[in-house]
């Protein structure tokens, strides 16, 4: 008779383990939702010519560009999962100089913002991998580099009380704050990039 009890206990345990799997999945999903999009499998943006023999020369755990789960991988295995995609070329002139890329691209949450995995790079390193596209070398960058960002449209009039942008949009203010990369802009230049919503460039 005991062997039937044992079999029933095993069935009970299987049900318990399946419930544990489900609970774990729900818990992990709930905790990871904000990060899920950022950590999805990335494509390899490098063309052959700019790839080194050792991916980990640049993509180190210390710089946060290699997930900790990948720490045991050898470089030749990178290609196994990360398909190569066209590299990103700079679509405008770099008249401002290669030391100021982050002035416009420094916010990862904005259009054309720096990827999360690039946060540890120095500005001067950008052009090592992202040269200027030859056919666009003379084109001027969009204003402040925020070509399609919602912030380029000002949703209110600019007269009277609203003439002084910095009255509301201060660095460090809780509401209406300026991006950190606008720290050194003068208030007079705001409207060079940001137009009222009903106007065209």
């Amino acid at each position, binding site marked *: *008779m*005991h*062997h*039937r*009890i*044992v*079999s029933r*206990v*095993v069935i009970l*345990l*299987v049900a*318990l*383990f399946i419930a*544990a*799997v489900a*609970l*774990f*999945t729900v*818990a*992990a*999903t709930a*905790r*990871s*939702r*904000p*990060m*899920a999009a950022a*950590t999805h*499998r990335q494509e390899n943006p490098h063309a052959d010519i700019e790839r080194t023999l050792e991916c980990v020369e640049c993509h180190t755990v210390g710089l946060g560009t290699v*997930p*900790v*789960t990948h720490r*045991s*991988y*050898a470089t*030749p*295995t990178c290609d*196994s*999962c990360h398909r190569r995609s066209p590299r990103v070329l700079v679509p405008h002139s770099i008249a401002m100089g290669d030391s100021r890329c982050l002035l416009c691209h420094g916010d990862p949450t904005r259009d054309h913002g720096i990827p999360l995995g690039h946060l540890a790079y120095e500005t001067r390193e950008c052009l090592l991998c992202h040269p200027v596209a030859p056919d666009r070398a003379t084109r001027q960058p969009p204003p402040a580099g925020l070509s399609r960002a919602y912030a380029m449209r000002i949703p209110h009039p600019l007269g009277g009380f609203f003439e002084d942008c910095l009255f509301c949009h201060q660095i460090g203010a809780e509401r209406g704050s300026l991006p950190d990369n606008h720290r050194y802009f003068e208030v007079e230049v705001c409207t060079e990039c940001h137009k009222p919503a009903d106007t065209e460039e």
Partner: protein
Amino acid sequence: MRLMIRGVFWFGLYLALILSPLLAGAVLFDPAQATSSFVYIAIACGYIALALMATELALVSRFGGVAGAFGLDSLLQFHREIGITSLLFAIAHPLFLVIDGAYPIRVLTPSVAAPWPLTVGIAAFIAALLVVGLSVYRRHLRIPYEVWQVSHGLLSIVLIGFAGAHVLGLGRLAAHPVVRVIWIAYLAIFIWMFVRYRLIRPLLQWQHPWEVVENREEHGHSTTLVLRPTGHAGFTFEPGQFAWIGFGRTPFAFTQHPISFSSNGDIPSHDGTIAFTIKRLGDWSQEIVPAVQPGTRAWVDGPHGVFTIDREEGAGYVLIGGGVGITPLYAMLQAIETRGDVRPVYMFHAANDYDDLTFREEIDAMAERMDNLTLVNVLLRAEDDWDGERGFVTADILTRYLPPRLFRRFQYFICGPGPLMDAMEKVLPAIGVSGERVHTERFDMV
């Protein structure tokens, strides 16, 4: 009651051991390791599979507390069924990774370019398939028990070693130091259990050798080996228990066999001599056992088992045995006679034919001596002049001999071929016997 408390304790500990790595992984989950739901399911399945596999050895490594609470035959069955369960979870692990698309299928197939944590994971998976597959299909594949036993142990080591390396080298949750420490502790416990099972335990046995003093033929193609302790007092045992026995110069051989005692553990001023009766069924019992000579060194690990009248209170006993399954029941009869226990005893002794009735002369003699013993021999093939029962042990035969009403208060011990025990587990409750009073002993697991 104490046994039940021990059972609840060990079961709770087992559940905690299986689920704690997953629980730690959930509590200490680093959002930077975020991924998709299917990958979470795959990770959880892998964790449960490895935890189940890593604790499998504990179930069968003859820990006194665990075996005493559940009985080694129940633990062996649990070990077998949980092994199959763990393989199902192990299969689900890569399956959900493929469903998710998190890893291309080529990464999950062995190749030179694959990262080593994946390679060892694949090796562990193959080892798991072999461990479970060879156990389930050993008879179909005609693999000798001894060969299977050695391969089972070696493959299990490979499986746990590779699976542990896979989790530590690749694991998303195991990136957290606490989770890593938990898995390393699991691996350390597994190694300790293996060392205890294969090294320390034989070392202790080495100090307590036994010597074969008699090897005699029995009816029913069986052999009785009588063993005497050498340089020590031996041990006492409860009627119905068993021990693992093996032969050789040292007790370090991988192959030991669980055999029921056929002697009486209750003899006053017992000289320590014990006997085992073994039916010629496999390579070991057909070739090795009959050839064992008096003077041969033997190693005995026991006593084990909860299939014993000493642990069950009842108004009487019903012993139903078939083939060599009569052995532990014969030991019970001897103890009942020695103790002068006057409670009614009904023995139903089933066999293929008259020559298969192992211990028939001895049990007939006991029936003559014991007023409280009712002996019913049931033969499948009987001569015309046979005056006993014919066919199988059925509800009709049982109810014809057992006392009305009182039979519900007896304890029932059944040992024999699987079909006999399966049949009795259906028949006895059908005639009104509570399932708690029905006890079986099954070792024919692989």
